[in-house]
């Protein structure tokens, strides 16, 4: 069997809306990926600790709380501190268009907003994951 892409699907922030994270986790699974799902209300530290221990190739976070401009750069920072900057870092959720440029500047490789077909996220990961 071909080596599956390992993805951490995590939900930082204090909102409890995990439907999106679950849908995307399921889509990644059906695309043949190994998805580590860590559940709600994760701190950046917890997310990065999980990413390191699980040795994932992709960190995918779902955030709908509005705290993306604080939490996502923090996650990227911690990944850098752990020398895990090579992990592909993507985000999804309710994120205003105006904030996307800032997030990309801070190292988020892609931002998937509501209405994005799951296949697009899958394709993006397949194309950009470093092997």
């Amino acid at each position, binding site marked *: 069997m071909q080596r*599956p892409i390992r993805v951490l699907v995590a939900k930082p922030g204090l909102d409890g809306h995990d439907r999106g994270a679950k849908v995307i986790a399921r889509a990644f*699974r*059906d695309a*043949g990926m190994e998805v580590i799902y*860590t*559940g709600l209300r994760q701190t950046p530290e917890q997310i990065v*600790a*999980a990413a390191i221990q699980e040795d994932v190739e992709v960190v995918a976070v779902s955030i709908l709380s509005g705290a993306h401009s604080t939490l996502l750069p923090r996650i990227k920072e911690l990944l850098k501190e752990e020398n895990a900057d090579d992990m592909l870092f993507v985000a999804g959720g309710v994120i205003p268009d105006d904030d996307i440029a800032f997030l990309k500047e801070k190292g988020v490789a892609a931002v998937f907003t509501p209405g994005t077909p799951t296949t697009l996220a899958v394709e993006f990961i397949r194309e950009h994951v470093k092997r």
Partner: protein
Amino acid sequence: MDRGKRWRERRRIAKMITAVENALPGHEQILQEIYKKTGNAYVIGITGPPGAGKSSLTDALARGYIEKGLRVGVIAIDPTSPFSGGSILGDRIRMNELSTHPQMFIRSMGTRGQLGGLSAATHSAVMILDACGADVLFIETVGVGQSEIEIVKLADTVLMVMVPGLGDDIQAMKAGIMEIGDVFAVNKKDLPGADKTKIELEAMLSFLPPREWRPPVCMVSAMYKEGLEELEVAISEHRKFQADHGRLEQRRMRNAQEALLAILRDKMVLRVKSDDRYEELLQRMMEKTIDPYEAARQLMEGLDSCSED
């Protein structure tokens, strides 16, 4: 290098597990290098039906060992889809608080086609965490049915997690999974029927042939953190019993044997498949001009005559 120092190199540990799980170049050397450093961790297998609370109980027990200053490794296995090859590994959900603790290392693995409740690389991952400083190692199997018993080969103590409401005493009488528990935990003890489940388990255990170790049945609640001390004591007692009766040595001898045989099988199969006659013999089997025993005998002769790796 001391065990504590190796334990802190978390990225390195994680990368080693990835290498063995995917048979990446260099994985054999990794296992060769660490092998001599293994054998220090006490391995606890956690098994039981889906939803019994294996992850939550692992989390609760791990906390106890961490408070004692021990380093705890967890290998949590969840099923891989036979169709897409993908998986959702969700055991960490119950262990999030501990995931940043420096004494804790949690790794999730998909079964990737392996039956029996574990993944093919579980043993290698156990050896890596053991060699890198784990004092206690939990292996959490997939949610099991009635015959996923591979865990007995790896664990020093098998903890069988049961819950009320899964069936009557006939279920408990069946052969297989119920026979491998060294310690039983009835989780969700606050639910109706928990006492009955305990009684049925006790009755089942009474009918087993008399053994020197009778598995205790502990009533626990991972959620409300009840009965955990008693459970930990039961595990310690089993550990002591095994040490006093030379059982740990026996188990580890069996593990060594399993590991060696697995490697031999893999290598022999690889070599046989690279034999020019392999395809030809298969074809002849299809045509019924040769039987599989004779084909195997001829291929084995090929093994005897070539000595290179």
